[in-house]
């Protein structure tokens, strides 16, 4: 079941920017693209733990700030020659508010 929780206004995230969301189970990075879509990814780079929320956002991807691995928002897969994957979480915008799926965030704790 999806339980959408409101994490704040879209305006709190700059276009082509991100916001870190802390949950008891670890951090999630919520990204806003240039076209005002939102995506949520696990904030930890599988390479050496770089904080993805601090990366540069372009198209539907983010570049890790530590060593430039690039991750696709929709699949969480590392692009190009790098291999690795971060978890993705359902996120959407409604009425100017950013919503995350709480059920999925919790499911992660059970899986982990």
């Amino acid at each position, binding site marked *: 079941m999806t339980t959408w*929780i409101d*994490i*704040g206004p879209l305006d*709190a995230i*700059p*276009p*082509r*920017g991100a*916001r*870190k*969301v*802390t*949950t*008891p*189970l670890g*951090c999630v990075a*919520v990204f806003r693209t*240039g*076209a*005002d*879509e*939102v*995506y949520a990814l696990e904030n930890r780079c599988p390479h*050496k*733990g*770089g*904080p993805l929320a*601090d*990366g*540069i*956002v*372009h*198209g*539907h*991807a983010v*570049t890790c*700030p*530590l060593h*430039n691995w*690039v991750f696709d928002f*929709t*699949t969480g897969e590392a692009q190009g020659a790098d291999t690795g994957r971060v978890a993705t979480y359902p*996120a*959407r915008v409604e009425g100017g508010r950013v919503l*995350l799926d*709480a059920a999925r*965030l*919790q499911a992660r*704790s059970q899986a982990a």
Partner: protein
Amino acid sequence: MKKLVVIGAGMASGRMLEELFDTAPGAYAVTLFNAEPRGNYNRIMLSPVLSGEKSYAEIVTHDDAWYAANAVTCRFGEAVTRIDRARKVVVGAQGEVPYDQLVIATGSAPFIIPVPGRDLPGVITYRDLDDTNAMIEASGKGGSAVVIGGGLLGLEAAAGLRLRGMEVTVLHLSGHLMERQLDEAAGFLLRRDLEHRGIKVMTKASTTAILGDDRVEAVLLEDGTTLPADLVVMAVGIRPETRLATDAGLEVARGIAIDAQMRTSDPDIFAVGECVDFNGQLFGLVAPLYDQAKVLAQTLLGAEAVFVPKELSTKLKVTGCDLFSAGDFAEGPNREDIVFRDPGRGVYKRLVIEDDAIIGAVMYGDTADSNWFFGQIRDGADISTLRDTLIFGPAFQGGAPVDPMAAVAALPPEAEICGCNGVCKGTIVAAINGGASDLAAVKAQTKASASCGTCTGLVEQVLASTLGDRFTRKAVQPVCGCTELTHEDLRRLIKSQSLKSMPAVWQAGAWKTPDGCHVCRPALNFYLLADWPLEYRDDLQSRFINERKHANIQKDGTFSVMPRMWGGITTPDELRAIADAADKFAVPTVKVTGGQRIDLLGVKSEDLPAIWADLNAAGMVSGHAYSKGLRTVKTCVGTDHCRFGTQDSTGLGIKLEKALWGSWTPHKVKLAVSGCPRNCAEATCKDVGIICVDSGFQIGVAGAAGMDLKETERLGQVETEEEAIALTIAFVQLYRENAKYLDRPYKWVAKVGLDWVKERVVDDLAERQRLIDAFAVSQSVYQKDPWAEHVRERSEQYKPVNLSGFAAE
């Protein structure tokens, strides 16, 4: 005969009645209410009426004769005030009418932003003929109009008013026009076209109030700007007109809730048009309303019909602005973009692909193929086999794959290759046959590709097709995969075409991605802010995290903070403040750096604004220890204390650091000033290193002691401190204006030659002064304390959103 009452004589109900009368004339006795004192007309065509291209008579869809022929009882100019469901009557000003079946088709109402002054005479919305006539009348007196809202309606109003001779400004809240239909690049092209017709466009403009005593006089923006206005058009959006339905106790979401047969929560009441809400979806274009109208007519006649919303497309009805957008740009897994740009013709096309089908398309400047693309979207066609040539449209599909070389070979001699310099193919071929065998030679002899460089690829193809196997392409390194341009081409393009925004460069440079990548965006951001300090606004999101957060990221995601110590001089008070900050924020490591200052390492992102605020309070600015900008100016103690000192090296170092700090440069810039040739400040391996001597100052540049080791070269020797500062600033500015992003000065000087630099910085006094003035202009914008600014305005961005509570359940 059954009694059908219809509330609202608009485009949806009009189409529904046509269907009804065509299929089963005489099935219903119809009473039609309309708040407007007229029957149905083509509302879409109000814009051509406003601009003078059409008259009202030309856009009437149902005239008196039509209503009479279909025996419709018209109650025009009479708004329905109530629906009494218990008695099955609707109540209008002139009395009640009973119904067997009722249709609500009230459309929508313009949204009015709740600012003071919104009720002043002269403030108009744009919805019906009366609004249109009011605008036509107001424009007769000339003057200025402000249109609030840069969407479809606002822009059509703006274009119409401009054609009628008014000075028009469009205010738009978002960063680019029509952001719901267009992406940034197309929005930019649209803006440029509108500006060419004399319409002023202000984006990110938020209206605070409408000013005036007994009619509108001006519009006040949030940033304090006041725009004089004789007319204000509010076109910020619409919302479904649901009041009657709500009062009658029908189920209403954002619009009147209906099922796929257009039935409301009352089985005898139906709704159609912009007033409805179908599974959470609202409608603002006529195509789906016509589908609804058909379904409703069938339902009323007892036939089976189901409403299925389809993909929508939008075109702007402003003559000369060719744009098209369709489909879905919203989130969806595995999406990819195909982008095509033709800077010469101002053409931009973008397709959004998902699972081998096109799901969205934006086109600007050339919409000839839009219907074909729209068809592909609607049909969900599999495009996997067309992918490579898809963006070129239907003409290229189905045949053999296109060979760009064949296309160039087939061009006639008079075909223009280089638009900037007007060089045609024949001229280039003649040069090649005369011995020009590579790009540089062709460029030198014909000037083809010598300006903006975007035709470089074409020129190379002419070379290849003329020379055959004898042609070898010189390996040029483009900035990144987003463009074919080199850094040098890019800098030239920005200057020669006065490109002042990222979307402008993406378009002119034929970028292959919608908004660049982590390689090109930081470079582009620097080039733009270095060339247009006053016009371009620094884009934080195009900066590497260190420059976005103004602190250096560490391997564990924490940051370092390094307060500036001007020329390496500090005081006990400053040291105490640093110690206090280290204690207060539990800083794990405090280190003296190689740059004569103290580094606090391991600070958490969320603590940054607080630690900066403390350091600011103690009179320090945090240092640019991370930037592609001025870092440190190392000094030795000089004449103040040293028995060998010849000049005040510490004092000069501090002056230089205070003059240069805050400026952004292609790569970092480090300086040093030593008091004598013993050189304790290691000035001979800096980007700029000054050695004081008895007779003055020896200025060296282009040294290195990082990945490469290189001694500085002598730029000049001067007698006074002022001249030493002037030469330094002029050198730094020349570097800012010309170097490739991420070239340290020594790499750049190696490319252009020290003599070239000397000519401009030392010999040509007028050029030296121009450089110094240009640097001052840039510093007027960029020499600011970003830490204080972030503490003030952005500290929220440093805090994570905390959801630790939610999972406790």
